[in-house]
C-alpha cells in the first residue's frame, strides 16, 4: 500500500450534519475535539504550572517550615522589619517571574500577576503545613499566626517560582527560548540579569540559615583571622563553583579574557551582593540589635558564606 492510499484509508469522511461537514483527522479526533483541546490546553498548562508551584513552594521551604527559630521570629520579629522583608521580596518575585516563572509571560503586568500568585501560593503552603505541624492553631493571637505565615511565605513564594524551572520538564524548550531571546538583550541587561539571579540565590540560602543561633555562635567563636580566611574561602568557592570545577551550567574560561576579569566583574560583585543581602537579612531578623561593629561584620561574613554559595549555584542552576 502506498503512503497516499494509507492516508486515504485513514481519513474517513462522515455524513454531513446540516451544513457542517465534520472531517476526522489522522489520529481520529474531530475538528470540534481539536477545538476543545486547544481551549483546554492553556487551562491544563495553568493547572500544571500551579501544581508545580505548590511542589516548588513545599520542597524549597520545608527546611524553614521545620525550623523552630523561624516560628519564634514569626511573633518576635519587629512588624516594620517583617513588612520590609515582604516589600523587598515582591519585586524580586516579579523579576523571577519574568525570568523563570511558572508559565511564559509576555508583559510586566503578567509578571506582577504571577508574582502575586506565587506569594499567595507561599501563604497557602505555609498555612497548611504550619497548621498540620500545629505550629499555628486556636489559642494563638492573630498577630502571632499572621507573623508566622507571612515569614514562611517569603521562601515558599520563591520556591513556587523556582518550581517550574527545577521541577518542570520543559527545560530544553525554555533554554531554547532563552537562547533565542538572548540575542535581543543587551550586554548590560545580561549582566544585570546575572546579578539578579545571584541576589535571589543569596537571599534564598541566607533565609535558610540566618534565623538560627548558630550564625552568631560561629561568629563569636571565630577570631578576626578566621573571618578573613572564611571571606577568602567564600570567594574561592564562589569562583571555583562557576569557573573552575566544571559543574553543569558552569562557564568555561575563555582564552581571550584573563581570569581576573571574570573574578572582578562577577565573583567580587556577587560576593558584595551576598554581603549586602546577609546584612539585610540579619538586620530584618533582629540578629544585629545591640551588636557592636566587629561582631556585626563577623556575623555578616559567616552568613555571607552560604549566601555566596547560593549566589554561585543560582548562576549555574537558574
Amino acid at each position: 500500500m502506498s503512503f497516499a492510499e494509507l492516508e486515504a484509508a485513514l481519513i474517513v469522511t462522515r455524513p454531513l450534519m446540516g451544513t457542517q461537514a465534520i472531517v476526522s483527522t489522522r489520529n481520529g479526533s474531530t475538528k470540534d475535539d481539536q477545538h476543545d483541546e486547544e481551549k483546554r490546553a492553556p487551562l491544563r498548562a495553568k493547572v500544571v504550572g500551579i501544581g508545580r508551584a505548590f511542589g516548588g513552594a513545599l520542597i524549597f521551604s520545608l527546611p524553614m517550615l521545620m525550623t523552630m527559630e523561624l516560628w519564634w521570629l514569626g511573633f518576635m520579629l519587629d512588624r516594620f522589619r517583617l513588612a520590609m522583608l515582604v516589600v523587598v521580596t515582591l519585586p524580586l518575585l516579579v523579576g523571577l517571574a519574568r525570568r523563570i516563572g511558572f508559565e511564559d509571560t509576555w508583559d510586566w503586568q503578567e509578571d506582577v500577576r504571577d508574582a502575586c500568585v506565587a506569594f499567595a501560593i507561599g501563604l497557602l503552603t505555609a498555612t497548611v503545613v504550619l497548621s498540620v505541624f500545629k505550629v499555628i492553631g486556636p489559642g494563638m493571637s492573630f498577630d502571632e499566626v499572621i507573623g508566622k505565615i507571612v515569614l514562611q511565605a517569603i521562601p515558599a513564594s520563591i520556591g513556587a517560582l523556582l518550581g517550574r524551572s527545577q521541577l518542570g520538564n520543559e527545560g530544553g524548550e525554555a533554554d531554547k527560548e532563552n537562547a533565542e531571546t538572548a540575542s535581543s538583550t543587551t550586554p548590560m541587561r545580561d549582566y544585570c540579569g546575572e546579578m539578579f539571579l545571584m541576589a535571589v540565590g543569596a537571599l534564598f540560602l541566607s533565609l535558610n540559615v540566618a534565623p538560627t543561633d548558630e550564625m552568631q555562635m560561629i561568629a563569636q567563636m571565630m577570631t578576626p583571622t578566621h573571618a578573613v580566611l572564611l571571606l577568602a574561602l567564600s570567594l574561592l568557592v564562589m569562583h571555583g563553583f562557576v569557573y573552575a570545577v566544571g559543574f553543569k551550567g558552569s562557564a568555561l574560561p575563555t582564552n581571550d579574557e584573563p581570569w581576573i576579569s571574570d573574578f572582578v566583574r562577577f565573583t567580587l560583585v556577587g560576593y558584595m551582593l551576598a554581603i549586602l543581602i546577609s546584612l539585610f537579612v540579619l538586620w530584618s531578623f533582629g540578629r544585629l540589635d545591640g551588636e557592636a561593629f566587629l561582631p556585626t561584620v563577623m556575623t555578616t561574613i559567616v552568613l555571607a558564606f552560604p549566601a555566596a554559595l547560593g549566589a554561585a549555584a543560582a548562576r549555574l542552576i537558574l
Partner: protein
Amino acid sequence: MREKSERATGAEKQAEQVEWAIGIVSAIVIIAIVGFLVHRGATATGGAPNLSVTTERAADFGETGQLLFSVRNDGTRAAANVIVSAAFDDGSGEMQRRSVHLDHISAGSTKTGGLYLPQDTVEFEVFVEGYADP
C-alpha cells in the same frame, strides 16, 4: 550592517566598563573589610569579657514589678550563658535572689532583659553572676 555591529561592540564595551567599575568598588569594600578585620585581629583579640549591668527602669505590673536592665560587654571577647541576678529585700529582712540567663553578648555589644521582683521590694542590687566562653 557594519554600523550595527559597531553599535553592538560599543554597547559591549560600555557594559564592560560599568561591570569593571562595579567590580572595582566591590573590591575596595572587600579590601576595607579585610583591612578592618586584620587591624582588629592585631589589636583587639584575646583578653576576657568585661560585663557590666545597668538598671534601665523599674515598671509596675499589678502585684509584681519588672526590672529592666542592660548588660554591656566592654571586653574584647564574647561571653556566653551570661547569668544576671538581682538580690532584693522584700521587707522580710532576708535577702532573696532571682536570676535570668542571656544566651550571649558579643564584645562591645549590649543586651537587654528583665527580672520580675515583688511589688513590696525595699531595696535591690543587680549584678552579673558569671559567663562561659562561647
